[in-house]
């Protein structure tokens, strides 16, 4: 079995991982949610179509999304250093996580909002809703179940990214897996971390699904 120090290390790294993932997810939504709304409403079937904005925004997002996370992380190291002061550790990992996840979240939000029945938007327009009111009172609340599922997917994706970040100086479970499991060939440490990651993903996914279903009023 693993020594107690290793368990202590794993325990701390779990907390670090939660810190990175939760802060990154929050910050990514602060950026990605408005972008997703913008994409959904400026597309040609949206409530305020604007092809130039949609195209430019979509292009930037696609470029960011097509860069693999590790490469993105190294590419933006100057930015990370400028913001955090270092490129190592958990806090520094938050920057690339946010840059990597925001475009992903923007697309998730866009697709959730586009699922809202067009007739409902039309009804809202017919009672005198402004575009802002449609977003706030119709699109976001009606898309809530789908947005919740999207959040669960986002959070688990960010968890995956954060583990990868451990390879290039990030903190958390990924760092322990890299330093002990990979460089020191402690495959038992690796196995434990894999199991922990699987459990965390399962928990987020399950909670997300349940919350989504629990609050979806379309289900009788």
């Amino acid at each position, binding site marked *: 079995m693993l020594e107690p120090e290793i368990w202590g290390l794993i325990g701390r790294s779990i907390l670090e991982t939660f810190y990175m993932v939760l802060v990154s997810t929050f910050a990514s939504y602060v950026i990605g949610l408005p972008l997703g709304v913008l994409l959904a409403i400026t597309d040609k079937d949206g409530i305020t179509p604007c092809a130039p904005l949609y195209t430019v925004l979509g292009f930037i997002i696609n470029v960011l999304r097509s860069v693999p996370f590790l490469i993105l992380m190294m590419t933006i190291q100057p930015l990370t250093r400028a913001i955090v002061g270092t490129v190592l550790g958990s806090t520094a990992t938050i920057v690339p996580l946010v840059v990597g996840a925001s475009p992903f979240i923007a697309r998730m939000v866009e697709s959730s909002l586009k699922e809202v*029945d067009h007739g409902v938007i039309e009804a809202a327009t017919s*009672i005198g809703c*402004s575009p802002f009111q449609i977003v706030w*009172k119709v699109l976001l609340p009606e898309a809530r179940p789908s947005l919740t599922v999207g959040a669960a997917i986002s959070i688990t994706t960010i968890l995956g990214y954060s583990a990868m970040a451990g390879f290039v100086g990030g903190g958390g479970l990924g760092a322990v897996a890299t330093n002990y499991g990979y460089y020191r060939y402690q495959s038992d440490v690796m196995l434990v971390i894999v199991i922990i990651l699987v459990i965390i993903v399962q928990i987020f996914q399950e909670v997300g699904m349940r919350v989504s279903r629990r609050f979806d009023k*379309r289900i009788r």
Partner: protein
Amino acid sequence: MRFPMQQAANPIIEISGLRKVFHTKQGDFTALDGIDLSIGAGDIFGIIGLSGAGKSTLVRCINYLESPTEGTIRFDGRVLGTLKPAELREARRSMGMIFQQFNLLMQRTALGNICLPLEIAGVPRKKAVERAQELLELVGLPDRADAYPAQLSGGQKQRVAIARALATNPKVLLCDEATSALDPTTTRSILALLKEINQKLGITIVVITHEMSVIEEICRHVAIIDQSRIAEVGEVEEIFVNPQSDIARRLIFPGGMPVERLGSERCVRIVFDGNSSFEPVVANLVLECGTAVNILFADTKDIDGRAFGQMLIQLPDDEIAQKRVFNYLSRVGISYKEESIHA
């Protein structure tokens, strides 16, 4: 042709020269062309046509969900095309709309749905809830305030939608195929509710439908739209008695008139205009004229307890007997038209 329509006495909606062209990948498509309509305040005005005729486009132009390519919509004295976006939203509060698919917010309760237009209009929460509760009573759902749309039947959903449309005290209620997703019994109850709203609240109702029975049941005036144009417009009774356009005849007699299939014969078309009931007329005709007649075709409808419609009667060969039939019809004051039918 009964066209164009005489100006309504006190119009609330005036449509003139309306044209709507959709630009699609396959080219331009003219969904509405040269539409002139005048809808009187307090009326129940039907717009009927086959699927794809342009009915929805027309009603969506009335509240500018769709901007006309050409022409003007005047609502309550204001030309909608000249309004700024905020003024247009304000004007829309005076025009409720209901839809075939109800279009309720699925994540809000019945009460929450009815509150939405009130929230938009800036009504304080407490007042909005009171008003919504009143409206639920008006539409006959006082105890379903907390139900979500998924827990309501189609008819109940449409009632909630009606309440939502009425929340801001509109002058006009636009109904686009509002009963087309409902069974006949529910359809009748929703139509009765619309009639009641028209009478109680004096709200002008515009009813879009592809079913003549809906027009018969509640409308006073009707416009028949065919292939992007108005084919005929007038009072419902008038059009039932004497449809002028092919499309009107097709809609009124969906079974089709078997006229074309007959040999060359002398016939008489009897028109029931609501002043008589048709059974004694035919019976007495046979008795008085002492001759048998052959009913080739009949399509009569009971509207508000009176007979409307047409009957095509094949006359006997005997000329004197024919004269007797004509005399009899003139005497009892039934309008008729002699027709000879060609193969």
